[in-house]
């Protein structure tokens, strides 16, 4: 608590972290304004009492002058907020334009490698094939990163959900498990899927939900130990459909658990296990689930494993079953 208060009060550090000059920094200007306000009231009172008892006009003029100063500082505060908002907007636009521009050459690389691997340009040796597959994987990582950056922009401007329709979580999960089965095999991780009950449709954006499910299962594979098992389970209650992904992996330390949904955050143990990753997956996943009226959370114990879960409201016509 004390640490939080001292952090909040350390205006200079805040301004430094935001990389803006002290005279354009709203928290600093705000404190200055408060200080001037208080001193103005006090000094007007003292001056009026001591020196201008006979002439209240002068006291009123002093008060007016001080009001003018606070008005100018107030204007500077508002102006600096405007500038910060404008910079943030420009940054978002830059990320959006750069990401869109990056997607075209990345798609060109992906499709050219697809073309060569398809054999339509002639056969390749095993070694050439392996090199191309490695290239393809690196390219996919870049595409994912660019897509993540675009998703973050969408989250920040409240446009992450593109459509809401009845969606079968079971179908998306089955498809995702099939797509990730080779990755699980390569990491020597078993994938177990369980959905005993009849699972109703939920309301969501199928493409965005796939990102969430993919992220959770992908993490369970990446952060498990070789030979481990990741368990995916879908259940329901009266109002919600719930999905849990349980792994027996490295887990998350108590000190780092509160930061798991921060943008770009990667836990130390995760960095040791997997150097590849942007620290954006969980941030984006939680934003998607919350935008759809659901909740996403986790329980974890270091060196024992984690359980990540989300729940989403059932689509209103309850007779729809998947």
């Amino acid at each position, binding site marked *: 608590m004390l640490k939080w208060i001292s952090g909040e009060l350390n205006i200079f550090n805040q301004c430094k972290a935001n990389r803006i000059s002290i005279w354009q920094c709203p928290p600093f200007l705000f404190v200055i304004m408060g200080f001037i306000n208080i001193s103005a009231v006090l000094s007007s009172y003292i001056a009026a009492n001591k020196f201008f008892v006979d002439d209240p006009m002068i006291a009123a003029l002093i008060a007016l002058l001080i009001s003018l100063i606070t008005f100018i500082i107030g204007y500077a505060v508002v102006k600096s907020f405007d500038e910060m908002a404008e910079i943030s907007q420009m940054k978002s636009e830059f990320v959006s334009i750069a990401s869109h521009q990056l997607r075209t050459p990345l798609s060109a690389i*992906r*499709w050219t490698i697809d*073309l060569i691997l398809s054999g339509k340009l002639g056969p390749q040796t095993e070694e050439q094939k392996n090199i191309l597959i490695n290239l393809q994987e690196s390219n996919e990582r870049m595409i994912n990163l660019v897509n993540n950056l675009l998703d973050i922009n969408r989250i920040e401007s409240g446009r992450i959900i593109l459509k809401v329709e009845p969606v079968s979580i079971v179908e998306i999960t089955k498809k995702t498990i099939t797509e990730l089965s080779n990755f699980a095999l390569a990491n020597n991780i078993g994938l177990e899927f369980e959905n005993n009950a009849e699972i109703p449709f939920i309301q969501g954006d199928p493409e965005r939900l796939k990102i969430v499910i993919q992220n959770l299962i992908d993490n369970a594979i990446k952060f498990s130990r070789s030979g481990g098992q990741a368990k995916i389970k879908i259940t329901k209650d009266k109002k919600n459909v719930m999905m849990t992904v349980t792994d027996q992996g490295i887990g998350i330390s108590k000190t780092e658990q509160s930061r798991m949904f921060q943008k770009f955050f990667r836990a130390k143990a995760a960095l040791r296990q997997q150097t590849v990753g942007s620290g954006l997956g969980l941030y984006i996943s939680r934003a998607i689930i919350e935008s759809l009226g659901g909740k996403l959370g986790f329980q974890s114990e270091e060196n024992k494993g984690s359980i990540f879960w989300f729940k989403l409201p059932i689509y209103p016509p309850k007779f729809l079953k998947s």
Partner: protein
Amino acid sequence: MVEKKKKILFIEDEATLQKAIGTFLEAEGYEIISVLDGEAGIARANKDMPDLILLDLILPKKDGFEVLAELKTNEATKKIPVIVLTNLEGIGYVDRAIELGATTYLVKANYTLEEVIQKVKEALA
């Protein structure tokens, strides 16, 4: 009797993408006409009457929306199915393209080459 090759017009300003899809589709037995800008795309659509058009949205001279609007208001070309193949993503773009008459809207970064070819085959079936 030899079956006539199906003709696909590909309007795309990125030569590498044209080459990748074009080569794959030619190997699958399709005839590909590739153009690099919107104006040339409209001209070739009228001249060659393709069975399908693959259309990028960010194009020189005339953008994809203008091309789509012209193709769909022209009696001669309005029945040709158009697959929009772009990296512009957003509900506004999708709605606009579909309203103008596009058959399908594909975001390049979300599809592998095989998946795109599959969509082409479905549209031509």
